[in-house]
């Protein structure tokens, strides 16, 4: 339509720090001996070097840490999908509300926010060195959104019939099967590449940007609220207790 127009990507204007729910979650709300998820050697050394007599400064999570926390939430949803699919395959009837609740969290938080951050701020910065991988990740984002749209209508299915049960089981399995290696590639290739591509001040600015966008969209404590919803899904499916996944002694 136009030769002059080109797709824009959001710029990264400096943003003032706000109430950072994701930061609190990752670094520890009290700011004392905060748990640092995925901290690199430099950050680890900085923590060790802090004087014991003074309260450590609250450090925002790096963009990679923030995105990997989103992946942690997402992985729990994938486990929920796998569990529901297993129950369907075994002839049981998983609570459909758990499946649609999980799909809603996927749509609201993963597809509408997490993947948008990647597409806006991460992929463009690493595409040059990982063109084929980024293309595949984009195709999978699209495929995932369409699968979620279908899974979200599970309430309309007659799950007493084999056909709809198998169709739903297939979609849940296909979704989890696609996103498990997808997340792993992002964690081990894409996010480290982002870290290497940006300077520390640029990473700090991006981290603030992520936190600010999350707060604008969802309000304070957004991630914790989504984690609570995931816990509700797990409760409905009978997988709230982590120990149910412990391998039996007979398997060792």
């Amino acid at each position, binding site marked *: *339509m*136009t*030769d*002059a*127009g080109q797709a*824009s990507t959001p710029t990264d204007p400096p943003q003032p720090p706000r109430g950072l729910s994701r930061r609190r979650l990752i670094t520890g709300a009290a700011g004392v001996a905060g748990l640092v998820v995925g901290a690199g050697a430099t950050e680890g050394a900085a923590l060790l070097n802090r004087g014991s007599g003074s309260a450590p400064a609250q450090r925002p999570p790096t963009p990679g840490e923030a995105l990997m926390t989103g992946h942690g939430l997402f992985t729990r949803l994938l486990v929920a999908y796998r569990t529901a699919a297993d129950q369907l395959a075994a002839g049981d009837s998983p609570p459909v509300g758990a499946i649609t609740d999980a799909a809603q969290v996927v749509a609201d938080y993963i597809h509408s926010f997490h993947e948008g951050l990647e*597409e806006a701020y991460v992929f463009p910065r690493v595409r040059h060195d990982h063109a084929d991988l980024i293309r595949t990740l984009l195709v999978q984002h*699209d495929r995932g959104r369409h699968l979620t*749209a279908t899974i979200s209508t599970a309430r309309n299915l007659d799950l007493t019939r084999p056909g709809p049960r198998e169709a739903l089981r297939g979609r849940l399995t296909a979704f989890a099967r696609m996103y498990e290696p997808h997340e792993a590639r992002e964690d081990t290739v894409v996010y480290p590449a982002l870290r290497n591509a940006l300077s520390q001040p640029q990473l700090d600015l991006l981290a603030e940007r992520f936190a600010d966008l999350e707060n604008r969209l969802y309000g304070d404590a957004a991630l914790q609220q989504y984690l609570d919803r995931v816990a509700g899904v797990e409760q409905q499916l009978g997988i709230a207790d982590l120990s149910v996944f412990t391998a039996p002694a007979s398997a060792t």
Partner: protein
Amino acid sequence: MLVSVPGLGKVLADGSRHVLYMFPPDAGGRVSCTGACAGTWPPLAIKDGPRPAARAGVNPQLLGTLPDPNTGGRAVTYGGYPLYRYAGDVDGGTANGQALFLNGGPWYALDANGQPITADPNGGS
């Protein structure tokens, strides 16, 4: 320009044949998709100053621009609707974003008259 997409017919596209979408929450003449949304749906941007150029089949009188809060520049409009690409259209000539409900609303391709096409080639899924 216009491209033919199975199930939709001829729809508006940019110069690289990527289908362009409108977002109903933009009614009122503003670009409401910002931040993470604009990663998935990048507005069709143009530098402040030049007017977008129409190719065959596109009505130049329907072209315009609006402020783009994502870049500080201008976003191209057609029939008053800000135009967006979809990150999931990795190749030109596809409309994978058609009728997808995402980021708070549905996304629709436009015909040459600037009318949203609401058909869902995936049958409502």
